[in-house]
């Protein structure tokens, strides 16, 4: 039975006495929402504490905002419930108009365009302004809510004309999304790489931008590293930051005690992190799923606690300072190099500038990240990569095929940890100072969020997600108070629209068709 006939049934049933009246139902829902919003918002929105100059703590009331919030939210709920009863028109029109007004006006206000004052702010301070909320950003957020109502009604309308949401329709939609993600990634990947390479160049690159991008690229690299563990091997690792810390501290100690430079320490830091990965993995990898996640979470905390408490070795909460800054393969970036040595700017005959080091750091992290990416792509097509994915799909079947599950998982864990170690030592040389505070659980959570948001196993997706997750808060810094609110809203939207991640798709590691073409091609030549 399609939705069209179902809709007709609804309407026919409406005349009967037992059927619920859509308007009454929607009104009930709206009332319930109003009460809920009032209870939740009355204290939090209605009162704001304020310290007035030289006086006691005081508060200001914002009853009008509470009233508006209650009114708008219950109106939205009313329209959404109507949509459920196939009355989509009011939601479509009202939602669309409200979105245009609130969102449009709000954005004009956020951007502080001069029209905002003349159009939406009344000159008389006692008269309320023409927008519901004083802060333009709050209007933008409610505008997004209206957009959601509009989108929901539009979707219901379209589904009604297309036909029911059968399994075939959904599968086809998923396949379409996957092939779109694949094509899009194919185009986006090279563009991103080229863009990343030219961005520090003169006309665009300023130091702050490059500095932010170094941070983003560090997370891209960490995301790609964790993608091996979580995306390919399917091992949920909540303590990934521990290996990042091991890498950072390895370089920190090697630099401050033995005086090794970054390039000498890099392989050692990777090896050290991989060793830790194996040491952790060996006892715990017989666990599956949630249990593994909890143990890795614990491991991350253990490493952090050791870093805090082992004063003599790690410097405790004070961390390690004075870590050698990065050098150009042995040639330092210094204004006044020691007697008889060269500095980077003298070698290349340039004016000394601190930006040179930042730009070099940027290219180093790009290089490291691209190596991670390249190795991951290669590994996926190796037998070990296929075994990782098979293990993710069905461990029991893998055993039956004679695949050693422990070793296979250990390699994934160790390789993932190694890349975290590389990233960690890069972090140490960039900061010049490391302390346990940089390696808290929230970092693990952010890296995992990047992998999941990007679409597990998708390399381009992870890069885009890192750009969003790390870059967006930086860009939104100007919104100050509402930064995290907008950020959270964007995350919710992505999860609603693309529950499997931004760009999730999977290309088989070996294709039959491709080869057929290759085999077929030389046949005419063979006749000669």
């Amino acid at each position, binding site marked *: 039975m399609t939705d069209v006939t179902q809709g007709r049934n609804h309407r026919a049933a409406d005349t009967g006495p037992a059927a619920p009246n859509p308007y009454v139902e929607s009104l009930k829902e709206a009332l319930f929402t109003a009460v809920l919003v009032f209870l939740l918002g009355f204290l939090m929105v209605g009162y704001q504490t304020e310290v007035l100059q030289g006086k006691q703590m005081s508060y200001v009331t914002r009853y009008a905002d509470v009233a508006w919030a209650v009114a708008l939210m219950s109106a939205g709920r009313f329209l959404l419930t109507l949509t459920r009863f196939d009355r989509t028109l009011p939601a479509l029109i009202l939602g669309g108009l409200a979105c245009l007004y609130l969102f449009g006006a709000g954005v004009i206000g956020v951007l502080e365009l001069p029209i905002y004052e003349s159009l939406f702010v009344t000159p008389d301070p006692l008269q309320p302004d023409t927008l519901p909320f004083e802060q333009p950003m709050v209007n933008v957020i409610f505008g997004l809510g209206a957009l959601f109502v509009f989108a929901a009604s539009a979707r219901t309308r379209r589904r009604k004309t297309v036909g029911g949401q059968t399994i075939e329709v959904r599968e086809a939609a998923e396949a379409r999304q996957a092939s779109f993600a694949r094509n899009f990634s194919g185009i986006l990947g090279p563009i991103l790489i080229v863009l990343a390479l030219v961005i520090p160049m003169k006309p665009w690159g300023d130091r702050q931008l490059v500095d932010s991008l170094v941070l983003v690229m560090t997370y891209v690299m960490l995301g790609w590293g964790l993608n091996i563990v979580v995306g390919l091997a399917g091992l949920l690792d909540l303590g990934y930051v521990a290996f990042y810390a091991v890498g950072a501290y390895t370089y920190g100690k090697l630099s401050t005690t033995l005086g090794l430079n970054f390039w000498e320490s890099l392989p050692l830091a990777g090896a050290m992190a991989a060793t830790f990965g194996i040491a952790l993995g060996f006892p715990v990898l017989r666990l599956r799923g949630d249990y593994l996640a909890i143990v890795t979470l614990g491991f991350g905390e253990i490493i952090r606690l050791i870093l805090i408490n082992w004063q003599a070795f790690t410097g405790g909460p004070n961390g390690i300072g004075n870590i050698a800054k990065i050098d150009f393969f042995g040639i330092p970036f210094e204004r006044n190099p020691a007697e008889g040595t060269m500095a980077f700017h003298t070698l290349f005959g340039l004016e000394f500038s601190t930006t040179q080091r930042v730009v070099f750091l940027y290219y180093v992290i790009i290089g490291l990240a691209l190596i991670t990416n390249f190795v991951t792509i290669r590994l996926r097509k190796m037998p070990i990569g296929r075994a990782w994915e098979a293990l993710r799909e069905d461990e029991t079947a893998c055993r*039956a095929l004679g695949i050693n599950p422990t070793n296979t998982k250990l390699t994934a864990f160790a390789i993932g940890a190694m890349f975290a170690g590389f990233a960690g030592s890069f972090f140490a040389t960039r900061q010049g100072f490391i302390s346990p505070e940089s390696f808290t659980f929230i970092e693990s959570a952010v890296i995992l969020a990047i992998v999941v948001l990007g679409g597990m196993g998708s390399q381009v997706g992870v890069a885009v997600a890192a750009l969003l997750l790390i870059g967006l808060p930086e860009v939104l810094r100007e919104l100050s108070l509402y930064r995290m609110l907008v950020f959270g809203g964007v995350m919710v939207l992505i999860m609603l629209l693309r529950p499997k991640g931004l760009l999730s798709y999977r290309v088989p590691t070996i294709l039959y068709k491709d080869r057929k073409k290759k085999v077929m091609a030389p046949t005419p030549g063979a006749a000669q």
Partner: protein
Amino acid sequence: MTAAATTHLADNTLLEVERLTMRFGGLVAINDVSFSARSRQITGVIGPNGAGKTTLFNCITGFYKPTVGRLLLRGPGGQPFMLERMDGFRIGQKAKVARTFQNIRLFPGMSVLENLMVAQHNKLMHASGWTVLGLLGLPVYRHAEEAARDLAVSWLERIKLIHVADEPAGSLPYGDQRRLEIARAMCTEPVLLCLDEPAAGLNPKESAELSALLLSIRDEFGIGLLLIEHDMSVVMGISDHIVVLDYGSKISDGSPLEVRNDPAVIRAYLGEDEKE
């Protein structure tokens, strides 16, 4: 039978199950079962539900450690393996015992061809120098992968799934998934193939095709097959030898004809006469 306490197997015996007992706490799932299976033969294992057939398979393929008893297998080079002492995955890796599952266990998200490539993991790992040489792209590995792929393709052609080689295995119809699982097990190049109810859920035409496939595997590859099956037309039709289990004990052992007329078997399947 007890005299065979050495690790020596009679000439054409492939698998020797000796006094196998498996207890789960107080429950005796298999009770003192002994039988042998030969190469180039299909050995059927039948019995009512809960007779211990799948437990027997799990013991042979290393998913369970038997409580008592011995499982002796003639490996690919003729050398004996004591399966009861081996880790689960090594039975597949070294002793070359492959199995399929009662509830199909493919890698549903991977393509059909990839499923068959994963089955050749150990061979390819070796050829890729435990990934190191493979990462460098040496020809040794490339040739090994080509060969592995040719083997996979030949199996796909045999089971008539070559047209869906690049599709996800999970999207195949049920009967195709059953055949793919058998092909995947065969890609490990086993000496003993254990099939757990391969005809379950197949229609008569598919069952007939399956019988033909199993017979061709027996004759062409010269390996032994161990077959659990409830579909009597399949078991009786293709088995060279049948073992009947009931409540964990062996109640009959012999050719299909002998087993069919064994009063103990009839009793187990149809129930005891009330008058006694």
